[in-house]
């Protein structure tokens, strides 16, 4: 009886073992990418890795440009977007340095900030605003907040590009007013987008205290953009 049972058991075992054993033993590296993707990114082509990161950055930019209450920016933060924006803005906004060798007093630079100054204002500003939010008791993590603040500079960068294009034409008061309006609109957009993401992390009696530094941060960046009139 034990033999019969064991034989039956063995038969059942073979039948049971056939299917899963095939799956596990035969193909560790075959195209089961759908299941193995999270664990096997070393084997994928580099292009895929880069595209995945670029896609994440692009999605975040999209969320900033059309801000609605979504957690995508917050959950997976990255600092690529802010870095790209900051470097781009600092390159565009830097004034030319004066030429110390020439004695001609007319061409001594245009008083704009140096690259390093814009860079420092951007990052130190973001850090200070984030520290302020955290000190007031916000429940958002440090890098998440910097990520949001950096990505929300995107509308202001768009405004900078537009202003630069406008600056190609000879200047007049009307064009200045147009530039001014564009920068103000971008400033409002940036502040609105960032408050949509960050405001919920504060208790309600301190919301204004947390939003004011964000407002000031974007205001300073807007002022840098609108003061930039150098056209060389």
């Amino acid at each position, binding site marked *: 009886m034990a033999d019969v049972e064991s034989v039956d058991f063995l038969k059942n075992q073979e039948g049971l073992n056939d299917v899963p054993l095939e799956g596990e033993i035969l193909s560790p590296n075959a195209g089961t990418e759908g299941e193995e993707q999270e664990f096997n990114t070393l084997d994928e082509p580099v292009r895929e890795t880069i595209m995945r990161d670029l896609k994440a950055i692009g999605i975040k930019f999209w969320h900033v440009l059309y801000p609605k209450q979504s957690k995508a920016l917050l959950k997976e933060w990255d600092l690529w977007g802010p870095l790209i924006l900051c470097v781009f803005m600092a390159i565009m906004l830097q004034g030319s340095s004066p030429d110390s060798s020439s004695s001609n007093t007319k061409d*001594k630079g245009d008083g*704009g900030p140096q690259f390093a100054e814009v860079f420092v204002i951007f990052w130190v500003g973001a850090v200070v605003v984030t520290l302020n939010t955290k000190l*007031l008791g916000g429940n958002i993590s440090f890098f998440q907040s910097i990520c949001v603040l950096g990505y929300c500079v995107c509308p202001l960068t768009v405004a900078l590009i537009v202003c630069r294009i406008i600056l190609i034409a000879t200047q007049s008061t009307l064009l200045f007013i147009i530039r001014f309006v564009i920068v103000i609109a971008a400033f409002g957009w940036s502040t609105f987008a960032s408050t949509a993401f960050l405001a919920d992390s504060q208790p309600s009696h301190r919301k204004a205290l947390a939003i004011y530094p964000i407002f000031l941060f974007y205001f300073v960046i807007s002022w840098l953009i609108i003061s930039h*009139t150098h056209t060389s």
Partner: protein
Amino acid sequence: MADVNIDVENFEGQRKVADDLQFQDIPHDAFVNDKGKVQTHTFTDFPPTAESDEEDVYDKTQLIKDESKTGSPSFWTFEYYQQFFDVETKQVLYRIAGSMVPSPRSNYLQTTIRPNPDLYGPFWICTTLVFTTAIAGNMASYLSVEGKDFTWKYDFHKVTFAATAIFSYWWLLPAMLFGFLWWRGSKANYTFLEILCIYGYSLSIYIPISILWVVQFEWLQWILVMVGAVMSGGVLVITLWPAVKDDTKKTAWIVIILIFLCHTSLAVGFKLYFFNAAAPQISTQTSSAPVITKFPTTPHPTSKQQNKKTLVAATNTNLPKYTRSRLKNSTLKRNRVIYKTTKKPM
């Protein structure tokens, strides 16, 4: 046998804590020996759902644990700094409003700042003031040269200068004042944080004033200087008077006058440095102003002195005599450096 006896004792003890307490009081010497006493100790480790009679003992041990934890957080933790930001929007607004309007009857410190001095208000007021002064200064110089021949160039380095000046005023003067009060043994016991708070909020009146300074009427600008200095200086003086009034009369008055003078010279210094291109003959000078204000070497001025010397060259040297003599008496070192260099022939 003995164990059975002891168990019975404990069993009774579990029901009647009063007996247990008396048991604990009487035979202290037998504490270690008697297993029963050791048993009663374990009572206190029971969770709070134990009988209500035991809550006293349980609470006492909890208190002992809590006392060691409720000391103020260490200087190196984040929570230490969070206690300085424990304000609400309304409180900050009240404090700003209170710092602008001197009222002799109520002490601003007592009513609005104690017991909760904060650093949020002063820090962001100073930062805002830095940027409004720099921006308004640029706008003022733009408006003053509008219509002239050359193109206006904006001066970003006003920001760095303004930041240095304002933040050092906000920190150095309270430090000096606190040191002085501590040295003289002032009875009012103002902490350093409270003095920082008072000074920070007293700068808040200069924010709207710096925006109004853009309007290019010299008399209006000077009136604004006076109004701002008097009002916020008044609040400062009234608030700080209780700290020095116990001292000798001479010292007290000297300190008060110095405080007021420093505050006023800050305002005057801002006005003269940032907003000084009103007169039309400046146009020839301001055409060289952007030239001189640029640093040929490093992006950041390496020292405050170099900053002032070169930047001051751009300011109006046609100071009316009375301000020059008044500023000679100013005790603020910063101004001394500025106006010394303007004595050189330009």
